């Protein structure tokens, strides 16, 4: 905006008078209004001699400078961030936060679709590290399938197992799939390439395993090293295998009970953790001849997952409805106890970001927990989903896949109200803004109530209430017992330690 101090009306005629508003612009019915534009002023203006020069400036804007020139131009935007122009800032922000919370609830549609195909319960799953949209699943009848998540169709089947498939894993390069089952065999399969997946024409036969290794006990789980050629199976003992050897290269045993899950550490390729049905969690190092450490809890641990971003921490999915996050260096107490399920937690998987993990439970729900939070942020359930046996995050961390007793795999969004697909920059900015105000006002009762509320199926709601009552009763009993016993004979133990029996080395 040009602003001159002494702008004359018309540079050509410096003494010309200001023009009255032209009568043409006034409609005919308006003509009753007489514009008497300073008739008296005119005379004075002429008569008055110019004496002292004062400085005057008033705001004047020319329309051309504040509007666009052509129709195809963008509209001009002028900002003035002065707080004085914006009254009720806080109230407006609060209203926006409240509306954003409500909208989030409205748009929360996490379930994308079910993948139907197995004829028995889905017992295990494995990600395909080479293909974002591929996932392997194994079922109780011995069927292994490769799914295309985008189309939610089976791409390929790997028949062969006689009994249930209990473990699935793929090698680090993504070219090999390893399965094991109750028929005492470990099978190695070649994974079809993505191109083949799309055209579904294969000159190679993927339904024949590359190798079948028969061993002397039934298998419960298998996991491949994150970086290396080895994989470990769990059964009545822990066996370490090489791809090319028909017998395990190493075997570990600590106690006589069945080992039910095994997971390699993502940071240290030689470290693995197992859990066994004698309620123990055991740490092994392949470079040593014997197990490193053992932790015995009060209940059995069904699955273990390492945090991929903090590889010294792992979380154990326990039979007592909770998950326990441990630091490997300090196993005498859990870092966090994640409570919310109302039945045994069957499987657990960390998001690739390491900030969240998903659990599947025998209570027919899938929950998402923050890695350091003791309660879940989200619960997913459908009427038709039965006991969940396995859950996995997708490799990009934006989807979840759950496999359950009802023979289906189900695909969920990791953020229930997230808008899928490409966002325009403006959309993204708006969403970021709404997230920020929600974060800012999350402590206010109304916002908090809306954000926290989750609808629970009736059985779960009742079971949770029952569990609460039981825990309260137990606490009360403890309190009374403590009050009536000798001081110091019943030390108060935090819940993080209470479920641990002992730690062996």
């Amino acid at each position, binding site marked *: 905006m040009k602003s001159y101090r*002494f702008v004359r009306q018309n540079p050509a005629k410096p003494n010309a008078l200001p023009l009255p508003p032209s009568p043409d*612009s006034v409609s005919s019915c308006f003509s009753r209004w007489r*514009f008497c534009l300073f008739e008296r002023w005119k005379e004075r203006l002429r008569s008055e001699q110019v004496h002292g*020069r004062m*400085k*005057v400036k008033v*705001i004047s*804007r020319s329309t051309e400078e504040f509007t666009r020139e052509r129709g195809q131009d963008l509209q001009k935007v002028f900002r003035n961030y002065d707080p004085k122009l914006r009254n009720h800032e806080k109230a407006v922000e609060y209203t926006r936060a409240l509306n954003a919370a409500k909208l989030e609830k409205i748009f929360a549609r996490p379930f994308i679709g079910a993948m139907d195909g197995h004829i028995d319960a889905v017992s295990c799953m494995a990600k395909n590290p080479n293909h974002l949209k591929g996932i392997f699943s194994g079922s109780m009848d011995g069927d292994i399938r490769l799914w295309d998540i985008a189309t939610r169709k089976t791409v390929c089947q790997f028949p062969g197992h006689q009994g249930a498939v209990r473990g699935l894993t793929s090698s680090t390069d993504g070219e090999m799939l390893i399965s094991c089952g109750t028929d005492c065999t470990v099978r190695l399969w070649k994974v079809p390439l993505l191109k083949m997946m799309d055209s579904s024409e294969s000159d190679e036969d993927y339904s024949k395993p590359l190798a079948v290794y028969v061993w002397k006990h039934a298998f419960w789980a298998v996991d491949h090293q994150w970086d290396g050629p080895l994989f470990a199976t769990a059964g009545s003992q822990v066996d370490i295998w090489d791809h090319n050897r028909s017998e395990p290269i190493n075997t570990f045993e600590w106690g006589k009970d069945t080992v039910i899950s095994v997971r390699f550490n993502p940071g240290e390729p030689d470290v693995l953790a197992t859990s066994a049905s004698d309620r123990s969690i055991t740490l092994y190092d392949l470079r040593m001849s014997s197990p490193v450490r053992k932790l015995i809890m009060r209940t059995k641990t069904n699955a273990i997952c390492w945090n991929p971003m903090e590889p010294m921490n792992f979380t154990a999915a326990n039979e007592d409805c909770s998950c326990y996050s441990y630091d490997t260096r300090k196993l005498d107490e859990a870092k966090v106890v994640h409570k919310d399920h109302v039945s045994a937690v069957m499987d657990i998987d960390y998001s690739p970001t390491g900030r969240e993990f998903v659990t599947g439970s025998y209570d027919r729900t899938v929950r998402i927990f923050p890695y350091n939070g003791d309660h879940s942020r989200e619960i997913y359930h459908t009427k038709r989903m039965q006991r969940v046996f396995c859950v996995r995050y997708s490799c990009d961390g934006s989807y979840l896949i759950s496999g359950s007793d009802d023979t289906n795999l189900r695909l969920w969004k990791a953020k229930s109200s997230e808008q899928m697909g490409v966002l325009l920059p403006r959309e993204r900015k708006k969403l970021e803004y709404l997230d920020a105000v929600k974060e800012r*006002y999350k402590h206010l009762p109304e916002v908090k109530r809306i954000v926290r509320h989750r609808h629970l199926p009736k059985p779960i709601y009742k079971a949770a209430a029952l569990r609460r009552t039981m825990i309260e009763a137990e606490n009360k009993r403890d309190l009374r017992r403590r009050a009536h016993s000798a001081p110091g004979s019943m030390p108060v133990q935090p819940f993080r330690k209470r479920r641990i029996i002992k730690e062996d080395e």
Partner: protein
Amino acid sequence: MISQLTERNTVKGWNCSMKDIHECLLASPTHNTIKLWGQHGTRSKAPSLKKVEAHGRLIFPAQANLRLCLLLTMVANQEIMDKDRLVTAIEQDMSDELNLKTRKYLRGDGANLETLRDKKLKGQLAVREKLYGQSAKAAAKAEKWLMPTEEGYLEPEGLEKTWMVKQESILREVDVISSRKPFDMILPELGPYNLEYASSGRYMLVGGRKGHLAMMDMMSMDLIKEFQVRETVRDVVFLHNEQFFAVAQKKYPYIYNRHGTEIHCLQEHGAPLKLQFLDKHFLLASVNKFAQLHYQDVSTGVIVANYRTGLGRTDVMRVNPYNAVIGLGHSGGKVTMWKPTSVKPLVTMLCHHGPVTAVAFHSGGQLMATAGMDRKIKLWDLRKFGVLNTYSGHAQTMDFSQKGLLAIGNGSRVQVWRDSGNQEYEKYMSHAMVKGYQIGKVSFRPYEDVLGIGHSMGISSILIPGSGEPNFDTWVANPYETTKQRREKEVHALLDKLQPETIMLEPSKIATVRPPRRKERPTKKETEEEMEAAVEAAKSITFKKKTKGRNKPSKRAAKKEEEVLKAKRPFLEQQMNNDKPLKKQRIVEAELPKALQRFSRKKAS
């Protein structure tokens, strides 16, 4: 840099002279880097000072005459030093100015993190505070460099006073566009006129007492619609945009659209005297002949509140733009402030001895101006509800501009007052209408240096330099709004509609923690500790050495014990008070009539 170059030049045998330069440079306080370029031409060239200015360092060809170089370096250094001094002074000024502006955008002081014990919270808040600081700084810079329009001003020459400047002489100085803004519209037939500007300042609504309604586009000076309702019109007000307006007519308020079509008749309000619209809340407030205050939500049509003021009929009503609280001026000299969620007024102030004739609120929310029939105009501080200044004068109508000028209409004269610092308002400009015109309403036009005057013979407008906010925000109020933008804005305004509960005296208190009401009692442990400290202090008192049997050990011990007891006493007394059970409320037995006395409970004997 220099040491490197020295090394490089040692080979060529420049060792000694380079050292000289080095020393010379070290001696000067602002020593500049000297670069010696071996590759440059063989002829000695005097380095141009322009280069020095541009880069702040000297570049010489290697074979240049060293003495010359040295001399030049010193001269250049001197110049650079002077320049530096100037530059630093300017920079200081600029940073001061920026700091001032940043303070405005910081919206108050940050949280005091020193007192926090929770380290995690402290860290989070520290990050947040840093972000606030950054955004405030960015906003301040944007204000400094990116604002397209400058504020208006009026600076008289020599001994002249601003209030002596006539409209004619202002008109002579300003540009064409501005010179079209003042006008007198003489409409003698349809009675005293009321006027109202839309929030963007582009549209003006005019209502004549005898039923003449008109809407004008003030930018193009076009008449948008004009019609007659053939009924008394007491007030006109724009709703959330220029598409709708409400009119206080003889029996009810009506809502019209811009084509003059009647949309609603709001019968619940009764015969309204004054209307106000709270744009963030979409509430239309009216006060009627029976002194009832009505709030109606115009987006849903719900009557939000209906309160009797109980202080008599009044047509003095203004909304405080800062907190959307409505101020009513009453004939008893009281000013009351209302919100839709309380039956009783939030504040009742006795402002004048006699009826209140006008009330105006500053947009900052801290200043209120009232005028009464007692020939007083008072400025009030709304933070402590105390009077700041009292001036003598009558005012039928008052209005604060966006920049804080106060327009006062009285009879056929308009005065504009300005804050001369420290909230001392003094006369800034004045304007006289033709004798006999009675001014009924003055209203500053937002984002323009224009004051609109509604009077008994029509409407006028005059130029008041420095009254309006020069820079508008497209997303707040846009005078150049297109249809599409208007529609978009309407939707957003509805999404962000505030609930009536958010109206309160201090709107920044939303989402803050209420401070604890009572001071908590010290815990038992704390009192015990305090007592122990007092006892220790008493024990450590050393006594004067007395003579003649008064300094016996037993006496000294007794004295000490007494001191200790004295120190303990207040604590023990307090403890006793605390331990005492609260006084039982004595049940006063009512004297029963004789016939019923036999049923009263027997006293335990």
